[in-house]
């Protein structure tokens, strides 16, 4: 509780009771030049309606029954959607364990994990290298990394469709080397490359912002104590960057796990990831409750991850941001 005198007698009208309930003080004294808390309500209402609202609806829909005809849900409680995730009902009506969808989750998780590990492994040396350039060069490099970040996802994915196409540059290059051209597009490897390509800037930016302010006097101290270059990287710079690394992991792992565009366009029909599975439930498969159940499972996993992240942030006193 804040013991200090509070300036500006007008408390936030909407959230005053929350504060009293939680006994939380203000972060600091209210500065003049602030609008009343009411002015934050349009944004909060929008968030409540179009972020929280849809999440709640999805959670509710996942517990509804699938209508016999048409799309949508039947307003009747049912846990069928969740059973459908593990079980398959045969024509005779008996259900048995069915690992099909679990396998889709495993494939997505493995691919997302691989992409994240590779992205962070590449991003760390790049971030350290960037941070050791002159300020002018750093700004240029930062711009160079940010441009792909803001480039249309379809454009970035399309570039790889072009390169990996049957008569594309990659196969021409192989032919030039005297290697048999192979089918490269529509394989899981193509989707993997596309995902790494998309998420590399997501990994570089947070790690760079963590390393950018690094005080190389610490490295000097380590050298004086007899550490080698590698030891300095591993034991001095890596811990300083770990907040950025955790942000990078969060920013790569979750979106890669739920990705749709890259697996569909580069992986082709044989690679089914969670994203396309969910999309198809709301499309051709017309099983909204099951699609909603899959979404809820991912949302819960994401939420647990976020909570773990918060705990880690608190314990390690590292700054972790999800905004880039």
């Amino acid at each position, binding site marked *: 509780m804040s013991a200090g005198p509070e300036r500006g007698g007008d408390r936030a009208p909407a*959230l005053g009771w*929350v504060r009293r309930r939680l006994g*939380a*003080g*203000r*972060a600091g004294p209210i*500065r003049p*030049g*602030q*609008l009343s808390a*009411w*002015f*934050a309500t349009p*944004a*909060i209402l*929008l*968030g409540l309606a*179009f*972020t929280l*609202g*849809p999440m709640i609806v*999805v959670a509710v*829909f996942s517990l509804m029954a699938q209508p016999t005809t048409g799309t949508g849900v039947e307003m009747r409680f049912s846990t069928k959607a969740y059973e459908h995730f593990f079980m398959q009902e045969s024509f005779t009506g008996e259900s048995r364990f069915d690992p099909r969808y679990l396998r889709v989750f495993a494939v997505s998780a493995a691919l997302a994990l691989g992409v994240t590990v590779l992205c962070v492994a*590449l991003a760390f040396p*790049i971030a*350290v*290298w960037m941070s*050791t350039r002159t300020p002018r060069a750093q*700004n240029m490099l930062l*711009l160079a990394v*940010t441009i792909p970040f*803001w*480039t*249309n*996802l*379809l*454009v*970035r994915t*399309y*570039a790889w*469709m*072009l*390169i990996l*196409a049957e008569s*594309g540059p990659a196969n021409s290059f192989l032919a030039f080397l005297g290697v048999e051209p192979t089918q490269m597009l529509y394989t899981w490897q193509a989707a993997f490359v596309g995902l790494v390509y998309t998420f*590399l800037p997501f990994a570089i930016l947070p790690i760079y912002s963590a390393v950018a302010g690094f005080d190389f006097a610490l*490295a*000097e101290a380590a*050298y004086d104590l007899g550490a080698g270059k590698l030891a300095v990287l591993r034991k001095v710079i890596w811990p300083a960057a770990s907040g950025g690394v955790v942000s990078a992991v*969060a920013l790569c792992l*979750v979106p890669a796990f*739920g990705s*749709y*565009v890259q697996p569909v366009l580069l992986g082709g029909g044989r690679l089914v990831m969670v994203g396309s599975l*969910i*999309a198809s439930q709301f499309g051709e498969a017309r099983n909204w409750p099951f699609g909603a159940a899959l979404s809820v499972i*991912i*949302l819960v996993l994401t939420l647990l991850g*976020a909570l773990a992240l918060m705990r880690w942030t608190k314990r390690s006193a590292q700054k972790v941001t*999800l905004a880039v």
Partner: protein
Amino acid sequence: MNGAATIPKAPLEAAPVPRPPTKAEQRHLRLDHFPGLWLVSLVCLAFLYIPMLIVVAYSFNSGRQALIWQGFSLTWYQRVFSDASIVSATKVSLQVAVIATVASTAMAVLYVLAMNRLGRWGSAAAMALLAAPIVVPEVIMGVATLAFIRLIGLNPGFWPLVFAHTCFCFPFALMNIRARHGTLDPALFESAADLGASEATMVRRISLPLLMPGIVSGALLAFVVSMDDFMISNFLASAGSTTLPIYIFGLIRKGVSPSVNVVATLLLLLAVGVTTATTFLSRQRGAAAGRRPT
């Protein structure tokens, strides 16, 4: 040269002069030099840029095949600009993006000006709510918004698109405005208050002018995010409100094509322009703020 009579030479001259370190050794001695990092970095930068440059190069191809080079021409640019479906999809995208940008930026400005009054818990909860669209996988945001729209009795179409875009553009608009707000000097407001300025006057005469670079770059980023979105729009658009990314996705699902090369190049140009502009804006010092923005 021996004997007690000779004056001993200065020790500096007597000691063998050390060989000056070579350039490579000098570099190695620098505290912030790590061998090999530059190679990894340059390879990765090439990895990021070469695919896009290939698309740009092929967009100037004159042939009907996307991948067989038949000479330089602007034919496909001409065709894209006169392609009715691409033009109308671009129009829809622009309309949605402009409304969503204005709405989300305006809300972000109001939010930033009021957020310190929400209290610690209030603003933490509000941030978690408002930043959620960045973290939640897009496909889930898409299907969830579709389910929500259907439940409240709307059909997919233009306005659901606008609402959803405003919502997911908001955190991107907010980022830069909030960063800029953090650099404002509290002394400015204190002296204004001492001189009897009302809160409204301070907002109008101090906050808004100083926040302007952040507001412009936030709006630009919101615009790009809206123009780029495929996944969420795909669930919310109807036949009459096909946006540009939805149309492109339909095209490239069938394979590579010369007109997509052109559209991709134009979208890349948009990203380069906006990123350069926002970088420039965020580096501009606020004349009165005096502090370097973080």
